[in-house]
Each structure stands twice: as structure tokens, then as C-alpha cells.
């Protein structure tokens, strides 16, 4: 479904991503792990169009999306969340989801100005749909509240709902466990598995290996900008390179 081919990215002489190659199969949860600073978020920024790669290509369902603008990549069917949660805090939950649905609205400015039937119908239909999406992450009772009033865990869920609202085929989830306690993390992982079971493909970044082991079918390991291993959770767990580069360091750090 998504093929990342030889992606390279330099920041002022520093190679942050070096010849990254991997492929995500439709319907799976793919995990990318690696220590902080390994280049995980840079990779997401490149896939979602916020950064341009120095070299390489990204193929999504046979279409080359390398270097497209973020909105075009969203339209192609890739959506994402952010490590540091970037919901629209001053807007209500419903409005957050409606912003995610932006491109599903087709009425024109004329329709807006004169409140034509088309505008009224679309706004009504999509509002109902937005409630449905909020109920997927069990936030529909709070639809009218401002997003800033939510707890941290709920904000993560809202961000997932907003990503779902763009009608993506693939969702990139950036470090969902960051800043959350173990209980919240577990709940969110359950949420991600449920979303996956609704036929959304998911690509997950995480630096805490334990979080992804249980839910991912395949895992890629990124270290210093390079993909050092790929495989099933069991293969990764037993890969000496991974243990040396990642697990060993993590344990001495802990």
C-alpha cells in the first residue's frame, strides 16, 4: 500500500534519514521503533508532505506522492497525528472533526453566502457523520465542549478522530504513548486496534518497544536515520543488531 523507496534527508550537512526502505501492507498495523532522535518524526513529516526528502520516492497505492503539498497527500488518503498533540484547542470537539472533513464539503462560496439548500444539507449530513466519528473514540457526549477542556488522553483520542475524519486509508500515528500513564496508553492502544479493525491501515511510531510489540504485525527499527531491521515482533525481539543498538541502550538508561 505504502512503499518508501530509498528516502534520504539532510539537515544542513547532517544526514537525518539514510536510504530508508520499507513497505506497509494494506490492513495491517506497522510499527516503527527507534530511540529518540533516530529520525522517526522526520520520516512522518516527509510522508505527510511537511518536509521534502533530499532523495528517494514515496509510492502510495501505485501513485508517486513524493513532494506533494500536505493537503494533496491528505486527499490521496494519508492522515496523521502529532507527537505533541496539535488539536485546535479553542474549537469544539465537533468543529475539530469538521475541520478534518474539510475536503468532503463540496458547496461553493455562493452557496455559503445565500445559505442554499446544498450548503444546509451538507452541513447537516456531515455534522451527523462527525458525531459518528466522535463516537468511535467514545467522545460524542463531549462534542460541544472546547477541545482544551479535555484530559491529555482524551486529546489524543480526539486527534485520532480528527485524523479519521479526513477519510484516510492510512493513518500515521506519531508516538501516541508520549506523556501518558500506562493505563491511558493501554486504553489508547485498544482504540488503535479497534480503528484498525475498521479497515484502516495504521503506521505507528514509538520509542517504547513494549507498547508496539503486542499490536503490530510488522516492525521496522530505525537507528541514526537507518533502517537496521525489519520483521515480525518476535524476529525483532531476537535480532542482535536491535538488541545492541536499542534495547541494550534502553536498559542501561532505565
Amino acid at each position, binding site marked *: 500500500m505504502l512503499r518508501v523507496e530509498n528516502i534520504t534527508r539532510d539537515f544542513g550537512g547532517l544526514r537525518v534519514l539514510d536510504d530508508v526502505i520499507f513497505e506497509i501492507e494494506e490492513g495491517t498495523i506497522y510499527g516503527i521503533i527507534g530511540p529518540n532522535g533516530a529520525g522517526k518524526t*522526520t520520516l512522518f513529516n516527509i510522508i*505527510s508532505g511537511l*518536509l521534502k526528502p533530499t532523495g528517494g520516492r514515496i509510492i502510495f497505492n501505485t501513485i508517486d506522492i513524493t513532494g506533494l503539498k500536505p493537503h494533496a497527500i491528505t486527499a490521496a488518503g494519508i492522515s496523521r497525528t502529532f507527537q505533541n498533540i496539535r488539536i485546535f484547542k479553542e474549537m469544539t470537539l465537533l468543529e475539530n472533526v469538521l475541520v478534518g472533513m474539510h475536503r468532503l464539503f463540496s458547496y461553493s462560496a455562493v452557496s455559503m453566502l445565500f445559505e442554499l439548500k446544498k450548503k444546509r444539507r451538507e452541513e447537516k449530513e456531515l455534522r451527523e457523520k462527525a458525531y459518528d466519528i466522535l463516537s468511535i473514540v467514545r467522545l460524542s457526549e463531549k462534542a460541544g465542549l472546547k477541545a482544551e477542556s479535555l484530559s491529555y488522553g482524551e486529546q489524543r483520542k480526539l486527534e485520532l478522530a480528527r485524523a479519521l475524519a479526513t477519510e484516510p486509508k492510512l493513518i500515521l500515528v506519531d508516538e501516541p504513548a508520549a506523556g501518558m500513564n500506562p493505563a491511558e496508553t493501554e486504553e489508547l492502544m485498544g482504540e488503535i486496534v479497534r480503528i484498525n479493525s475498521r479497515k484502516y491501515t495504521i503506521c505507528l511510531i514509538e520509542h517504547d518497544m513494549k507498547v508496539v510489540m503486542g499490536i503490530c504485525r510488522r516492525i521496522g527499527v530505525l537507528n541514526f536515520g537507518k533502517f537496521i531491521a525489519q520483521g515480525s515482533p518476535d524476529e525483532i525481539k531476537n535480532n542482535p543488531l536491535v538488541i545492541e543498538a536499542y534495547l541494550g541502550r534502553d536498559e542501561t538508561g532505565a
Partner: protein
Amino acid sequence: MFYQQLANALALGAVYSLFAIGFTLIFGVMEIITLAHGAVFMVGAFAGYTAATKFGLGIIPCLIISMAASGFIGFVLDLVAIRPLRKKKFHHLAPMIATIGCATIITSIYQGIFGAEAYRFPFDFVPNENYEFRGIQLTQLQLTIIFTSFILMIMMIFFLNKTKWGKAVRAVAENSRTGALLGIPVERVYQFTMIISSSFGGAAGVLTGLNFNTIHTFMGGPILHRGIAVIILGGMGDIRGAMAGGLILGFAEVLSVAYISSDFRDAVSFGLLFLILLIRPSGIFGKKIERKG
């Protein structure tokens, strides 16, 4: 003729640099644009003028009084308009707008006192003598302006690089949180930055008043525009960039007046500014800004 223009440009540009150096330091350390810096400049010019005419003081005491007066205004600005906004989390434009309010207050009070007419420094304030270097005529006034500006700027650079307080200022400019962790009194550094930057603005006011032989209450506006152009030209927050930017603007203005038309002098700075923002928003010397995802 050309070299003569260069001498004029140097005197003009040196004062622009002197004005911009404080302006850019405030941005570098506090991350705000203080649009009251023009008003501070005007206050400095009038303080120097008053010292010269009412008390008959010479140029050096006048400069000191002017710097003290404008430094005091900088202190008050920080106390009244900037510090309260630092305490709470506000929109990033709030301090800029607060300083617009302060500039309006200061300017209208001065207009109330001094009116709109032009004032001049005493006739023999700087002796009217000419010096000649290889065919270039330099007046003592120009020499005084160039010399004073550069001495002050060198002092500033020395202070920032060699003294303990200067290093603290630079550390806070780099990262205020780390600065605080290192035990630097960040609030004091902010206050101090406002005072010293404003006093440089005031000195620039006196020198400009001498250079054009006129001061008036609305002289803050044009210099503020040029200051903005200069600090963007040199890269915001960059001291050396501000010095170079001021000189570049001085040369650009003098040369455009000499060789194109005097009508567009006021547009030169903004033409330059506009161009630089289109081509290289980080300024001539600034590092390229990467977009963060």
C-alpha cells in the same frame, strides 16, 4: 565626489547601526519588537538638547545625560508594558502592541511640551572645522558622529563577549530556560537589556539631531522604519548584522539620493527590506530557517 558621498554615508549609516543595535538586542534577548524604540530615540535627542541649551553642557555630558534619560524610559517601558505581559502567557503580538501604546503616550506628551516645531543644538556645539584626507572633506561633526557611534558599538560588543553580565545576556538570548537553570537572574537580564538598548537609541537620537542639525517630536517614526529595515537586513537578533545592515542602508540611501533621485530616499530602506524578505527572510547574515513539522 564619490568618495565624498561615502564619507556622508558612513556618518549616516553609523547612526543607523547605533540605533539598530539596541533594537536587535531586545529582539534577540526578549523576542519582542518594541515599536517604542523610535520614541525612546526622540526622548534621548530632547534630553541631549535640553542639557546643551539649558545647562550649556558639552557633547560628552550631553550624550551621557541623553543615554541616562532614554535608559530610564527603557526601564519604565519594561516595567509598565513588557514585564506584565511576560508573566502571563499572551499572544505573541501583545508586547508589540503594548509598545505601540507606549510610543503614542510618550510622543503625545512630548508634542504637548515641545509642540511640532524644529529645535537646533547651539551653533558652536561641535566646532565647525573641516579635515581633509586624500581629497575627502570630513567635517568635525561627521568625525564626531562616526567616532562616537563606533566607540559605543565596540563597547557593546566587548561587553557582550567579555564581561560576566554580557555573557549572561547572551545565554538568555540563546535560551531563557537554560539561562534560568544556570542560575542567571533572567528578569534582571531583561530589565538590563531594555535599559542598555534604550540608552543606545537615545545616543543615536542626539547624533541624528546633530547630523541633520534639527530635532523634532516626530523624529521617532522615520528612524523606527529604518531600524526595522536594518535589523531584518542583518538578521533579527544579530548584533553584527545590525551594524552591517545600518551601514549598508546608510550607503544605499546616500548613493540613491546622489545618483538616482532624492524623492525616493524614504523608499530605499523599505525597498531593500521588501527584497530581502522575498529572497532571504533570515537576513543577509542569518542562518537559513528550516520549516519545522
